[in-house]
């Protein structure tokens, strides 16, 4: 302990120390159907309502390195759904879309007047990305739903 103290003192001397939240940052892409949510997110505050559990501290939530505003988990007969709310950054949208195409290939696209649904289906996981658009151009995220099939 003493050694650690000295090292830390050295590091922080004459400079600002930031709490290293790295240990608490959770990569949501690592979650599987088997993951015990409460254990996995231990230490991070949550809200629980009925069978749904929600985390909303974006400092700790990442999906392929993209900051996630809120994530909620719910288990049902089909498997586990992970619903993410993202910040309305166009670059986030481009990155997520590129990443998902890289992982699962071209999506099924369902375009409407003011929204677009992208859907990727495999036998293990279904991913739906819904965005709002204006004349076909991204304006904001609706939600990103990942269903992990049992």
């Amino acid at each position, binding site marked *: 302990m003493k050694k650690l103290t000295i090292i*830390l003192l050295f590091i922080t001397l004459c400079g*600002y120390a*930031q*709490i290293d939240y790295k240990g608490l940052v959770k990569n949501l892409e690592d979650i599987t159907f088997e993951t015990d949510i409460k254990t996995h997110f231990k230490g991070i505050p949550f809200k629980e309502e009925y069978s749904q559990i929600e985390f909303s*501290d974006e*400092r700790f939530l990442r999906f392929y390195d993209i900051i996630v505003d809120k994530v909620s988990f719910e288990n049902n007969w089909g498997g586990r759904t992970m619903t993410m709310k993202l910040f309305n950054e166009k670059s986030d949208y481009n990155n997520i879309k590129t990443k998902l195409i890289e992982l699962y290939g071209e999506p099924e696209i369902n375009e409407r007047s003011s929204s677009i649904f992208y859907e990727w289906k495999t036998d293990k996981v279904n991913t739906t990305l819904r965005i709002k658009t204006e004349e076909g151009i991204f304006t904001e995220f609706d939600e990103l739903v990942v269903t992990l099939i049992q």
Partner: protein
Amino acid sequence: MKNVIFYIVLLASISITSCGKDALKYDFSKIKSHADTKGLIAKIQLENEDEDIDSTSSFEQITIKGMHYAGVPIKEALITDNYTLLTTDTLNFSAKNLLEAIEANNGLINLTDSYSDRLEFGWKDETEDKTLKINLVNGKHLAAFGDKDYAELTINYKPIYTIPLANIHKEIKTFDNQAKYVLNTRSYDCVYDIIVNDIIITESSNETEFNLNNYIVGPDSSIKIIVKPRQKDGAKAFNEQAYFTAAIVNNENEEIIEAIEKTALKGSTPIVFQTDFNSTLPYYPKAWTDGADLRNDERLKDKVIALYDKLGKAMLAKDEQALNDIFYQKDFEMQQLDFDTNFEPARSEWETYLSVQLYCYKYTVANDFDIEFNSGGKLIYTYAKDKSDMIIFTGKGHDFTLNHYLYQPKGSNELKIIR
């Protein structure tokens, strides 16, 4: 993890203190009461005579250099009689630092409210309530705090009570296996009386959840449920869809201790369900176990009146010690049976009594009441007939009533409140 974070913050504040441009002299994180705050302002006033600071003012804005909260520099402190508002500067990630400094001490916390350009967090503990508002200036959101963001920390210091009744949580023992026995019911078109360990805990109720710990005094308990027709619209019999089912569950681990299977209710006579259940607890209260059998006590009615009269007198005399003695055993046992170490229940009950003392100028005790004998006559409950409750406290536009389970310890001649 928490410890490491704490160390880092501690070190950070040491390093800042030793080499920052303005020594961090006045630490608001060490302040624990309004009186402490006044002390700190007096100190600031003494050390900054050129500045115009009034330690007696009830609305004082201070912008002296050297103020900080756990190492995070504070640009402006507003001290009022009701709260202290600290605003950080807009340099060097001050908002982020302040949030992290508080979280290091108080644990991570959920956002209470969040707008696009302002985030709010709240903490509550025994001595203070804190609200932290982070104003995002050039940070986009919480995950990407900017270096110009600043924070406003509002602290409300709470009064400190020394009376044991307000500090019960400090006496509560916790255990590995602290069972919380709960009766859950489901039913249609019926009401029920519930009797636990020969204590009538409710009559003609249709609520669905009952905590049982308060009525447990040993590892073996009994429960009796008398299910009756609801008698709605003059009906005397059960409706044909009427049913009843119940289970005693240990809420700690969701384990079902005892279950009453779903039963269709027929006819018009009450149906009685009766069972024993294992009520093992790591703690058993003394409760009424050494109580005297009151069934043949001829002076019982007078004793009941005498007890409530004593309570009324203590309240009007603002006799805090007497009130403590009247309620302590009940409150302690109930909170211990809940294994609840939270400070709030005892504090809020004590503050209720304080407000009764403040607002009420009269009490009235029921003289005409029915006495119900429980647990072999050791525990009694009374039903006022001439008044709405056993004791009524009255103030101008204020009223407050009480009614409790009572017992008489062996060797004593006075009743005591126990539940």
